[in-house]
């Protein structure tokens, strides 16, 4: 029986981004439409340690206005006073959209309904390697906190200038900077209007202490819950692009089975159906996705029969028969050192330390 090879995960095949963002920061703000922009650069070791990597030559040598490299996140206080945050992370049911918005709401002392989070739209967001490994909260959330905290302080600076007030008298609440002495207030929109301010910060920006949190650590309704319960939210299968076809892959009946021949004539005769047969790849495409299953079923494919493999019924006996060093006697399972020995055995077998 053949040895099993471990399939590679997509992130293990990572090659590094093929391009780097190098727009001028002023151009960038013009594109977004004025206001205040805060960009966060990652420390090189941070960038290497996390999936938001994308190292390389950034900027285009335009003096201080060049875009920095290793951008982790950016935040835009729009001229209408709303806030848009951009991240390469995506929402897959882990509630990252809500938790990341909550961090921005906390730092900007702003109701989450005024915060838009653009996730994973690669035309708009900083480079990010992907959403996996429970990295959004430990890695991305602190970055988003920092850009939001710096944006808040920039708004306070602007308010201090415009009100000719001391910063220490100013307080940020509900989308306004309020002068506690005079009661005068300026909204985020009033402050950001006509501005083209941008600031690049590094990883050491000061964020609100957990003991002072007002939004975080409390229940918060999922920010796009209403879109989900009304069917308005568009998941990727709900999106339509011009000329788009739906596809279905014709799969082999067993792991490692090879395609030997395929009679696709019946499927090809079906109106609107395109058959794709390229080497070992076999599939059908059609603008009407209801035709995919019948079209795929109409293909008569011959596959090689692979060497017998364990299935879910006999996988345990397979393991017992193939464990390196043989099965330990049952008595050993009850002793106290069992767990440690099991873990070191697993580590020796797999190269992965579970300690």
């Amino acid at each position: 029986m053949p040895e099993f090879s471990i399939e590679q995960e997509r992130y293990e095949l990572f090659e590094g981004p093929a391009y780097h963002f190098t727009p001028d920061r002023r151009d960038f703000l013009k594109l977004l439409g004025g206001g205040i922009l805060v960009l966060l650069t990652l420390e090189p070791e941070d960038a290497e340690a996390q999936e938001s990597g994308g190292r390389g030559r950034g900027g285009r040598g335009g003096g201080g206005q060049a875009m920095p490299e290793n951008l982790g996140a950016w935040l835009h206080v729009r001229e209408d006073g709303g806030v848009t945050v951009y991240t390469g992370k995506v929402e897959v049911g882990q509630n990252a959209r809500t938790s990341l918005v909550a961090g921005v709401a906390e730092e900007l002392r702003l109701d989450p309904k005024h915060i838009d989070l653009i996730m994973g739209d690669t035309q708009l967001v900083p480079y990010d390697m992907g959403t996996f490994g429970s990295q959004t909260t430990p890695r991305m959330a602190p970055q988003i906190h920092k850009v939001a905290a710096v944006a808040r302080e920039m708004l306070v600076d602007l308010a201090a200038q415009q009100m000719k007030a001391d910063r220490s008298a100013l307080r940020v609440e509900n989308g306004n900077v309020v002068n506690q002495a005079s009661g005068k207030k300026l909204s985020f929109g009033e402050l950001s209007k006509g501005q083209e301010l941008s600031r690049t910060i590094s990883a050491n920006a000061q964020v609100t202490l957990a003991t002072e949190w007002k939004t975080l650590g409390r229940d918060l309704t999922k920010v796009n819950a209403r879109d989900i319960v009304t069917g308005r939210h568009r998941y990727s299968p709900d999106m339509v692009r011009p000329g788009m076809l739906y596809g279905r892959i014709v799969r082999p009946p067993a792991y490692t089975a090879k395609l030997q021949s395929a009679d696709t004539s019946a499927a090809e005769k079906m109106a609107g159906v395109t058959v794709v047969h390229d080497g070992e790849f076999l599939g059908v495409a059609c603008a009407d996705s209801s035709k995919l299953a019948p079209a795929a079923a109409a293909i008569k494919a011959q596959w090689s029969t692979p060497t017998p493999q364990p299935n879910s019924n006999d996988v345990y006996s397979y393991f017992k028969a193939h464990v390196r060093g043989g099965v330990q006697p049952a008595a050993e399972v009850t002793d106290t050192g069992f767990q440690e020995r099991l873990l070191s055995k697993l580590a020796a077998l797999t190269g992965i330390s579970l300690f």
Partner: protein
Amino acid sequence: MELVVNGRRRTSSSDPERPLLYVLREEFDLTGAKYGCGEGQCGACTVLLDGEAVRSCRVPARLAQGKQITTIEGLEHDGKLHPLQEAFIELDAMQCGYCTPGMIVAGVGLLKKNPHPAEAEIRRAMQGNICRCGTYPRIVQAVRMAAQGGSHA
């Protein structure tokens, strides 16, 4: 083919044998009903036909002619959500939310027939709706909440 979807008369040029789900999603751009399995096993595609919850991926569109088709998009009236939609939000009865439209429509179908179902009746009526995230306990709670508050349900 004439179809009445969410109270609106619409003309479909689809083959009458095309399952209703694809007519709704790909012809009328009503993507609230989801494609899950395409085999009537998961409930993501649930819509109401004259108030009865059906798996739209298995219902030829011709069978929906002359009936009131209600999709998730049709439960909100003048900005006011159905009590079950409200309950789903309040109890956060979803994670990724992909099964949610089908869950809510199935729950609305149940409440139409049985406005005050016992928990066992909810479980029985909803057992054909699958949630991969495993939010079942809150879904059952949401149906109960809507039933309790629910003269509209």
